């Protein structure tokens, strides 16, 4: 599929297929998907409405057992949530626990793993600093704006110190300004940490702006329509990158591919 002979893939999806239900009511969500993601790569996954992007992400995250095939993280077959992978959900207001403070939300996965208290505090501080929320640990998530809440969710994922960061349409319910800020934040985080990021989105501009590679999916039953290498210069910038003729060409190409597949996904799945 995607040529990666020289570098080691951290994530591999091999002949993945997901069918919901059985018999006549069976719905084939994912037909067959195979791709791999290299260490430190930023991959965006886009596709038409209802194409099983979330299903794919849940299979990678170990929240859903696929019907056929498998996914591998660092060479290990995923049969439950992998330890070296963290997931950022779209619904930031439901993925943060309202009875815990920002600090509590960032550290509870660490506490559950019996990470020593002092290390929890250090990792929490570092993660909050990385997302620009240092000093917010005593606040409750519901006291913060949507964009800040999603930053907390990202900080929680970072403090977990995963090898792969999965993001499921993380900015879909944010206003345009917060979305642009967070797009840049994720790029900065990726640059600082060298994390591998797999980013599902329905926003074509966002996918081209963020990614090293964009994987375009087909309608159900989902397969890969095309993989595009994004060779835009880094660090990227909301103004200059988006005015780059190469950016415009790529976004048009992705848009054309998706339009030929059907309706654009406006509301997630």
């Amino acid at each position, binding site marked *: 599929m995607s040529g990666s002979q020289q570098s080691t893939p951290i994530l591999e999806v091999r002949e993945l297929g997901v069918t919901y239900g059985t018999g006549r009511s069976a719905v084939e969500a994912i037909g067959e998907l195979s791709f791999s993601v290299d260490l430190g790569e930023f991959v965006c996954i886009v596709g038409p409405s209802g194409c099983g992007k979330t299903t794919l992400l849940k299979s990678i995250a170990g929240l859903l057992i696929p019907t056929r095939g498998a996914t591998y993280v660092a060479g290990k077959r995923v049969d439950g949530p992998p*330890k070296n992978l963290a997931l950022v959900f779209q619904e930031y207001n439901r993925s943060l*626990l309202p*009875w815990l403070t920002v600090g509590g939300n960032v550290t509870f996965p660490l506490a559950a793993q019996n990470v020593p208290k002092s290390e929890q505090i250090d990792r929490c501080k570092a993660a909050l600093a990385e997302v620009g929320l240092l000093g917010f640990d005593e606040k409750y998530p519901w006291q913060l704006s949507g964009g800040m809440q999603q930053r907390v969710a990202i900080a929680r994922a970072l403090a977990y110190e995963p090898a792969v960061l999965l993001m499921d349409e993380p900015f879909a319910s944010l206003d345009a300004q917060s979305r642009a800020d967070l797009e840049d934040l994720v790029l900065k985080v990726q640059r600082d940490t060298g994390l591998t990021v797999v980013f599902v989105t329905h926003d074509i501009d966002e996918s081209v702006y963020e990614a090293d590679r964009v994987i375009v999916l087909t309608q159900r039953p989902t397969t890969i329509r095309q993989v595009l290498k994004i060779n835009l210069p880094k660090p990227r910038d909301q103004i200059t990158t988006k005015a780059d003729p190469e950016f415009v060409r790529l976004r048009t190409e992705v848009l054309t591919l998706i339009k030929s597949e059907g309706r654009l996904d406006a509301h997630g799945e």
Partner: protein
Amino acid sequence: MMRFGRFGIGLIVPVVFFSLWWVLSENSASPYFPPLRRTLAAFVEIWFFSRFFTDLLPSVSHFLSGLTIGVVLGVALGTLMGLFPRLRRDVSPMTEFIRAIPTAALVPLALILFGTGFAMETFLISLAVFFPILVSTTAGVRSVDQVYLEVAQSYGLSFTDRLWRIIIPAAAPHILAGCRVAIAFGLAATVIANMVASGSGLGFFIVDAQTSFRLPDMWAGLIMIGLLGYLANGAFVFVEHRLLSWHRGWRGATRAARAE
């Protein structure tokens, strides 16, 4: 500001009530409605001295132990029923059946099982407390947001961690709403258990005072029961306020976001 206002009203009404009672009853010649002055004198004598250890303390301690047992068992079984739909289907016809029987009707059974005294009263009180807690805990656990559970799962939380870090806190508003009802039920059960089947306790005391025509004592008993209920509820509100301050803030924020 608002809390002060509510506190003020909460104080003014009883003060007015008891003042009126005092003044209107002062020259009462009716043996059924003795002057409040005499009732209060009896109240102090009885509850601070003569009956403190024999009646007040046993009632309070039975109430508290019954409440504790009922809450612990109710939360435990309610959590299991909330988590496992099969268990809920199999067990709930039975719990609904027992729940429908008034506590007073269970007194004879409790007497056969435990005789009179601590065990029998605690049994009745915990049973009365158990059901409202069971129902509210089951509902609370069932309504835990699916996304919280997916977050917990994706971060590899064990079942115990999921239970204590996610499910119980998320269900806490429901559980505490059940506790409020349970406290009232528990107090009623305490008085009933005393009245029907003991030789001591608050319920016994007011019946005994009435039958031996010590009517100021009976009134003093009523005031004490009211006071206990008031204090129990006050203690509950105090605890709830601390445990659920996040819930008020979160609900307010959610509502504001929806109105936007």
